[in-house]
């Protein structure tokens, strides 16, 4: 059995090869490795550089106007007359309300449906169905926002006019519906992760005590996955607040406080997209639009940070 070991060992390489080996990996290779590792570190830090870069360059364009700006008036006034020759007014109050109302309405629709779908995928589906559904949801997440806007404009608007007998189809409800559909995929995938993280022993204990699936979901799973589901909802919110093209095309263009969900509104993002092209670099209007950018940056920063902290909290447990 050991013949192969004892008899046939070739005498050759031995120590000589070892010394040769030492010499082969030359200075150049070592230097190359040093260089690539430096590059890796640089790329590693790049995300920080870019985030600061975004803040810096957007702020830089908008900063000069800060001197002329009364923060209270900027944030709370609803007078947005940026193109007025004599008395231009830059109050983004109505835009903020527009963003919040569209986002809020979207979440009222998306949260129950998104989390319900997450429960369905995680708890009721198995094998093939689950894979298929996840693939479909992944594909839905890939639909570009401009296509969503187009759907809102050409498909949803006439339906809304017909169903609810309202004069304008491109309105807050239309935009909210689109945003809801857009944020569902991310909610499903994060929500499913959260539900997956609930130990099976919880489910087994629940079933052993005779709970119906219904009770199990309502009393055991949802409370146990509460934080993850909250994070899922928050990421949906962040996505909805930051969305541009869909709301630009589907919420109408009037800057005002909405009185019903079928009123057209304008959001912060849509305002930048719609008006920046018509401003000249360095004008007040131009600078204000960049300040709105900073405002958006800050809002999404806080929302994402919160969601991230919640997710981290779950992982540490």
């Amino acid at each position: 059995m050991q013949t192969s070991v004892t008899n046939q060992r070739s005498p050759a390489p031995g120590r000589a090869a070892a010394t040769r080996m030492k010499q082969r990996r030359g200075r150049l290779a070592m230097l190359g490795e040093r260089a690539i590792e430096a590059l890796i570190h640089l790329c590693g830090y790049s995300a920080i550089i870019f985030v600061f870069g975004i803040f810096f360059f957007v702020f830089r364009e908008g900063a000069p106007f800060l001197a002329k700006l009364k923060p209270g008036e900027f944030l709370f006034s609803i007078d947005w007359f940026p193109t007025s020759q004599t008395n231009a007014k830059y109050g983004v109050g109505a835009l903020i309300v527009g963003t919040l109302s569209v986002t809020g309405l979207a979440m009222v629709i998306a949260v129950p449906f998104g989390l319900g779908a997450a429960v369905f995928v995680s708890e009721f589906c198995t094998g093939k169905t689950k894979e298929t559904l996840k693939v479909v949801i992944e594909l839905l997440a890939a639909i570009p926002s401009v296509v969503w806007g187009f759907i809102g404009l050409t498909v949803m608007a006439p339906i809304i006019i017909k169903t609810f007998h309202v004069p304008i189809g491109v309105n807050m409800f239309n935009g909210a519906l689109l945003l809801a559909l857009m944020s569902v995929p991310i909610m499903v995938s994060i929500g499913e992760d959260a539900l997956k993280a609930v130990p099976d022993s919880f489910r087994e204990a629940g079933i052993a005590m005779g709970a119906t699936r219904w009770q199990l979901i309502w009393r055991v799973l949802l409370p146990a996955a509460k934080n993850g589901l909250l994070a899922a909802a928050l990421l949906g919110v962040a996505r909805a607040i930051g969305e541009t093209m869909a709301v630009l095309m589907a919420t109408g263009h009037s800057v005002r406080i909405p009185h019903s969900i079928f009123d057209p509104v304008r959001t912060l993002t849509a305002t930048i997209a719609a008006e920046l092209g018509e401003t000249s670099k360095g004008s007040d209007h131009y600078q204000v639009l960049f300040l709105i950018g900073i405002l958006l940056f800050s809002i999404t920063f806080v929302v994402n940070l919160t969601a991230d902290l919640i997710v981290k909290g779950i992982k540490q447990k």
Partner: protein
Amino acid sequence: MAQAHFTETPFVRKKQRAEVIAKCFFGGMAAAMVIPLLLIVGYIVVQGAPSLSWEFLTTNPRLGGIRGGIWSALVGTLYIVAISLCVSAPIGVLSAVYLNEYAKDNWFTRIVNLAVVNLAGVPSIVHGLFGLGAFVYAAGMGKSILSASLTLAIMTLPVIIASTKEALSAVPVSFREACWNVGASRWQTIRHIVLPNSISGILTGVILQVSRTAGETAPIMLTGVATFKMVQGTGLFLYNPVEDQCMALSMHLYYIATQANNAAPSLPYAIATVLLGVVLVVNATAIGVRAYLRSRKKW
């Protein structure tokens, strides 16, 4: 047949009914999100069908885009996708390598991770403002394909970082230890063992990045996309990326759907179909590649 049965008491029956109702309820919620969408996508394709043809794809648009095909928009999207891919793929992969292989578990790494999360969360229009401020004005590139591509490259970086990181961390630590034990350096280990075995995740990330880039509108609208521009000739270099602005599919759809009058009614549907087709095919490829490479897993 001496088979024991559980007697169905009314209580049990009620429980079973509750079970079915629960399944229908949650299934309905999923269906309510998915089915209308599939219908809408189908509707778009049907409406766009009359305009779709090979000629539609390969001829230049005319009369401000309302006649002719979408050739120059298609080419523009291709340019933007290719350039931003060349920038963000290497940076994204190396960045993930840093985070997964080199970064120590300390406050600095937490900040880097946080930055990645926030980079992904910044609204696309703000990325556009950044591109305008940084590339178009500060760097003096002007509104050009290059500015637009760089903006999108930074915007889609987190997509590549996230999926690469996941793929890297799926390679067992024991492989790395085995390599270190035989005197391989960190980089040699990464180069020969870790990267080749996480290629499926990296590829998925890259493909998803392509789909994201192809569909994005708001950032490039501010940094380098024109509403109408024809391309001449048939060579490979139809645009000059440093100088030219270009058309893009996504922007073309926005423009035709909102600004153009007198266009054939099926035109925007046809553009939307092409855009959807591009994005969905790319994504389906990603899913396919992932499944294929997973099935060939080496351990």
